[in-house]
């Protein structure tokens, strides 16, 4: 019923125009605020991955950390919105020293997922996470980024030594009972999907992760990734025709918003774009969003890629 709103033309001048014909950019309404994201470490990361779609780095201070009170206030407010799941991202979330406390508060009311590179997980931190998990009926998901099944394939993207350090983090999480979701951007040839997937499984088995959970994401050709691989072509845009008979609930922007230190944005992918800032608070940010960016095309192709249980369907 609400999906019909997708095709309502955007107000003149409010959004970028798509395609050479200049047709109105399709808009996606917020059907329900199921997923509340926190840009908890801003754009600050201890790594400088060559495919990062928001160019995070130790010296990228475009977005700064969220503090405990801010997160707490949004958690309180989120109840009346009926939020279903909470996600914490950055940058590297564990650079924010308050993250464990934020997770503890979150897990008192619902499930939490952390998108991490697992290189900042000393035993003390993992033990704390295990205690937080044990105290909650809800799931604490650790989503660990790894972009190749070996140092040779991963490190050119994520940095020298990161394969080893990340696997150490994974091993520690597994030792404390977690089943981290290994998240890889598809930086290899799709024809190699089956082989690479098996190599991931083998590498994870070697560090004692006997039943690995693996999620493969399409790469997003913005930020640093535009230089590493390619940028989007003009044709890679979402048009109104493409939204006909399309289930808009497949798109993250129909069910999520992300809180940053500079306001509430439509999704974690587009925070570098001014038009993706929808307001100062959830109320303002609940308005529809026009799919004017090339990256929207990737989500249209693949669905809500940022949630835990979706990704590219791999051919065997």
């Amino acid at each position, binding site marked *: 019923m609400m999906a019909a709103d997708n095709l309502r033309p955007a107000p003149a001048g409010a959004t970028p125009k798509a395609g050479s014909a200049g047709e109105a950019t399709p808009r996606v309404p917020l059907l*329900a605020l199921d997923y509340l994201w926190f840009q908890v470490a801003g754009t600050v990361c201890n790594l400088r991955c060559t495919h990062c779609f928001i160019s995070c780095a130790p010296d990228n201070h475009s977005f700064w950390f969220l503090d405990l009170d801010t997160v707490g206030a949004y958690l309180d407010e*989120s*109840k*009346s*919105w*009926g*939020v*279903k*799941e909470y996600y914490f991202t950055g940058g590297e979330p564990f650079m924010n020293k308050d993250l464990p406390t934020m997770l503890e508060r979150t897990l008192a*009311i*619902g*499930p939490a997922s952390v998108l991490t590179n697992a290189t900042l997980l000393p035993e003390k931190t993992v033990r704390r996470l295990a205690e937080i998990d044990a105290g909650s*009926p*809800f*799931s*604490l*998901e650790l989503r660990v980024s790894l972009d190749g099944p070996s140092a040779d394939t991963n490190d050119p993207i994520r940095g020298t030594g990161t394969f080893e350090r990340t696997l150490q983090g994974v091993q520690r999480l597994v030792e404390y*009972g*977690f*089943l981290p979701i290994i998240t890889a951007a598809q930086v290899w040839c799709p024809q190699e*999907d*089956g082989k690479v*997937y098996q190599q991931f499984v083998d590498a994870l088995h070697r560090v004692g992760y006997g*039943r690995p*959970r*693996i*999620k*493969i994401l399409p790469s997003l050709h913005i930020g640093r990734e535009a230089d590493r691989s390619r940028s989007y072509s003009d044709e890679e845009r979402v048009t109104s025709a493409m939204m006909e008979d399309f289930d808009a*609930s497949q798109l993250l922007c129909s069910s999520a918003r992300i809180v940053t230190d500079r306001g509430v944005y439509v999704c974690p992918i587009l925070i570098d774009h001014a038009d993706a800032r929808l307001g100062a608070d959830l109320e303002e940010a609940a308005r529809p969003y026009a799919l004017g960016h090339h990256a929207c095309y990737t989500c249209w192709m693949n669905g809500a890629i940022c949630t*835990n*249980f*979706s*990704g*590219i*369907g*791999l*051919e*065997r």
Partner: protein
Amino acid sequence: MSAEPETYTRIAAFGGVYSNHYALRAVIEDARQRGAEAVFCLGDLGAFGPHPDRVFPILVENDVGTIRGNYDDSIARGLDDCQCGYTDPRDNHFAHISYRYTFDNTSQTWRDWLGELPEQLHIRLGDRRTLLCHGSPRSVNEFLWESTTPTHFLEKLCDDYDADVVLCTHTGLHWSRKLSGGRLFANVGAIGRPANDGCTDVWYTMLSAAGGSVRVEFVPIAYNFEAFAQEMVDEGLPDQFVETIVTGWWTTCNEVLPFKERRRGKF
């Protein structure tokens, strides 16, 4: 608006039959013995098991109030897959085998019957407005797991859909949560395969009007799982499916399980 909902004081409900006609018969018999005035099936009649056409007459003959799950919808409409949304290659492989077998062995008569099933049912348990659905009141293929479903989310579902009690299935794992004002949410579980707990029993749900609220009771059922497993072998279904029936552990399609539910299982 449709007619005034039927009122009951004691019902049985389950989902996920997965072609398990042995468990279906055992559950219906047990529910009658426990005084169920009506029995409801919340969908996903096929998948996984052998001879899908065998469950439909049992449901009809026993007047089981049945709603359409995502699997039933796919079979009825001749879709390419079960709409479970798997991306893991191994899960997709087995989901495909299961779906092709079920589709090829469901006769046109029963495909048509599936297509006519309602998506939701409204009844009253005592004076409590009770909504029966497959995944959630808002989506046939939404997974409501215990460890990823906040209480405030369930409260909002009840508010949004004018229900005091919401019953669903789809995940295959039973659980319930008491809500404000005597309201209740219950995932009634699945009877087609065990609950990933290392035991061969399957689970269904009894619900009783009690004072101003509704009492929920999860009931384990032992049934002739050996005969069912043998039928699966005879039909050439994957060993991995048979293993689940005889061990109680889920061996496939585990990808969608959240961390806490996944950790409780073996695979």
